């Protein structure tokens, strides 16, 4: 029986244009769904665990973020930190349906019960 986070990860990963999705939970465990090829789970987890140093150049007081989106030519990386310290990474194809719904998926993640 999957929990709400696992169900949401499966549903989110099924969206057209989602290349990978991972969540670093408050207990330090990481859950990822990806195609396993170009975006393997271990790389997603590694990125999630390097979230803070990745954004260390930004003054945290001035840029207390709702999210960050790193946009590359072939992939967009959205990091979404929650107030409970859970962290989401979504990787989507630019100009895809998933790219247009990044805000939507972000809102879903922020609203997701994580226990």
């Amino acid at each position: 029986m999957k929990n709400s986070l696992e169900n949401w990860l499966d549903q989110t990963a099924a969206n057209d244009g989602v290349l990978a999705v991972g969540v670093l939970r408050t207990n330090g465990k990481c859950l990822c769904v990806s195609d396993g090829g170009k975006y393997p789970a271990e790389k997603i987890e590694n990125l999630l665990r390097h979230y803070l140093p990745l954004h260390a150049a930004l003054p945290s007081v001035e840029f207390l973020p709702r999210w960050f989106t790193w946009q590359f030519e072939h992939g967009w990386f959205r990091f979404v930190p929650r107030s409970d310290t859970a962290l989401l990474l979504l990787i989507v194809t630019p100009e895809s349906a998933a790219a247009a719904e990044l805000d939507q998926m972000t809102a879903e993640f922020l609203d997701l019960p994580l226990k």
Partner: protein
Amino acid sequence: MSDKSNHHQVLFVDDNRDYLEAVGESFRLLSAEDWQLQAANSANQALQIIKSGGMDLVVLDVDFTDGDQFISLLHGCYPKLKIAVMTAEPTNEKRAASIAAGAGLFFEKPVSAEGIQSVFRQLCKLLHWEPSEGFQGVLRRIGLLDLVKIECISRNSSILDLYRQHSLGRIYIEDGQIIHAVCGEIFGERAFQRLLAISGGTFELHDYEQPPERTIHRPWDLILADALRFRELAKGQKVAGGTTVGSGWEDGADAPVARAEELLICTGRGEKIYDWQCAHPAARVAMLQAIAQQAAQIVPDWQLGHFDRLEIAVPTGRAVLQARADRIMFARFAQTGVPT
């Protein structure tokens, strides 16, 4: 109804005479005097004027008249009369009740020249709207959320198909209860929330048929309340991020306005080319260079192509950093509100 298609009889009902005069004069000018305006400052006076015949549109302040009952009365007695409702304090409840009572348009009282022009355009659409079979054109009159609410309150059974270029999903309502929703691969309440939060699109109401399964079991009012909360949350994300600006399911939903607060452009080597309202250009340049370097290292072996930009959504707005080989640009925007 008026004989001349370009000339319309419009009645404003409000107890604020000064407001009536100011708004009335504005609409008269905007319509190039095609609108023949009358004003009433009581429901009784309004009824007397409407009874005399020829009225095309009534615009009434729902806060001062007897609200929904007066709308229902007008709608029942004069079904061809177009009714628009204005209020100084719009709420979703007022909007749904007014629409359910028979209003074709619900809007916040305009207090600026831009607001008056926007309302004028919507009233023109309402004046020229003609009812047709099915729900084609309904998007001009009510929002998806309102339509679902009306279907539920009326204990109807129906199917709502939603489109944006292609099919987005489907909502099943049986005897006033939302029983099933599908959005792509997603089913149930999450699909319903997703459908109601999507920006832009059209919908059609169809005769009811049994869904393949029932995926929603909670009462409709709880589901709608959650969907509304979720939509506001998503809207907040969009306002902060500014990546998506759509008209929404509800016609006339204007986009949030972003105001530039800071701009800095420097060369790829970090030499400042231009800055505007940048309090600490040297610190900013250092930050931009650090981020540009970080981008190069973020996924070195992932073949992602060139780094285009970093977008940051913060509670008060957003910031965009764009990096090119020869130039780095940083801009910060503040959200200045969501006009109605």
